[in-house]
């Protein structure tokens, strides 16, 4: 498991091939994506600013709720378009977890790297959930463009839910909006 590895100056996310073909190709075994192996979930989370800078984060686990690994920080300006993309892969080879979920969101937080999760009752920029029967090798992915209009620090996080294990996996990046 690896987390919090930043990779500045990567090619723009927007310039990369669309992600459904990549996902389908990976599912068909045509391509083996360079995901880092985790105990149950591989997660690759990307956040890209308009200047081409991209930050990446990989799987961590909770509890504790914010994991153990430091989060990378993406800097951008208020009003600029930010792209987030994640692909999660279930690498646990046994059984199906019925009614499992994936939850992702961008929400305002007090400071970069804070160790408590901010409430989702206010300051949410975007949020989404999926509910499904999680089978071995299943993949779930999403890409979304969004704009943050108010300067501040925001948490971008994607997390597994209801996987019927004693812990869940997540990946997160702090967004510093100036």
């Amino acid at each position, binding site marked *: 498991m690896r987390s919090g590895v930043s990779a500045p100056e990567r090619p723009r996310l927007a*310039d990369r091939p669309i992600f*459904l073909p990549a996902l389908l190709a990976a*599912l068909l075994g045509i391509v083996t994506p360079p995901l880092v192996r985790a105990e149950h979930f591989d997660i690759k989370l990307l956040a890209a600013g308009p200047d081409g800078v991209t930050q990446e984060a990989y799987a961590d686990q909770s509890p504790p709720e914010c994991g153990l690994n430091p989060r990378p920080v993406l800097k951008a300006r208020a009003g600029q378009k930010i792209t987030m993309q994640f692909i999660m892969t279930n690498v646990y080879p046994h059984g199906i977890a019925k009614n499992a979920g994936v939850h992702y969101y961008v929400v305002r937080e007090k400071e970069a790297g804070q160790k408590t999760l901010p409430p989702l009752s206010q300051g949410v920029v975007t949020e*989404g959930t999926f509910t499904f029967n999680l089978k071995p090798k299943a993949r779930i992915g*999403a890409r979304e463009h969004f704009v943050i209009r108010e300067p501040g620090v925001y948490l971008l996080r994607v997390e597994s839910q209801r996987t019927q294990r004693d812990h869940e996996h997540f990946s997160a990046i702090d967004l510093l909006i100036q």
Partner: protein
Amino acid sequence: MLAALQARAYRKASAVRTPVMLALSATLWAGFSLCASAQEFTVELQASSRSQTQTARNSQAAPTRPVLPTGAGEPIRVHWFASNAEKGPAISDVTLHVFLEKENAIGQAAVPKPSAQAPYESALVMDFEPGARSTGDFSLQAPEAGNYLLRVETIGASKKLGREYFAAMDVKIQ
């Protein structure tokens, strides 16, 4: 004499048989309809802007789609589900693909292929046992003004069901 009796018997039997056959046909038709609907895979899409909610369910390739009007930067809330019928076949490796992508005109027949600039795109893969269901719920900011297609579709259902399923609507952003 015998012929007359036979004719009368036939008319009598016919008089009884016709309503019975009609009732039987109606029952069979209803049964088949129920069966068909019980075995149908369902995809439904619902989207809400500040002023309206639109719903699309098991869309066909018809020229008319619901239209959700909204303004650039305003929030759009989307909910979708896909479910296999209780008595449907088990279908493995179905991808549920959801996207919002710009289109040239409201109601256009051609489905735009989502690009890297698509405001939203997601995919998940699961096996649909009979009665299995998957849902998605997300918010997004309406992108720049224009016409967009919001669509949820199956990829891989046709191998068991003979066709893919989708639900779609147009989003008009002003």
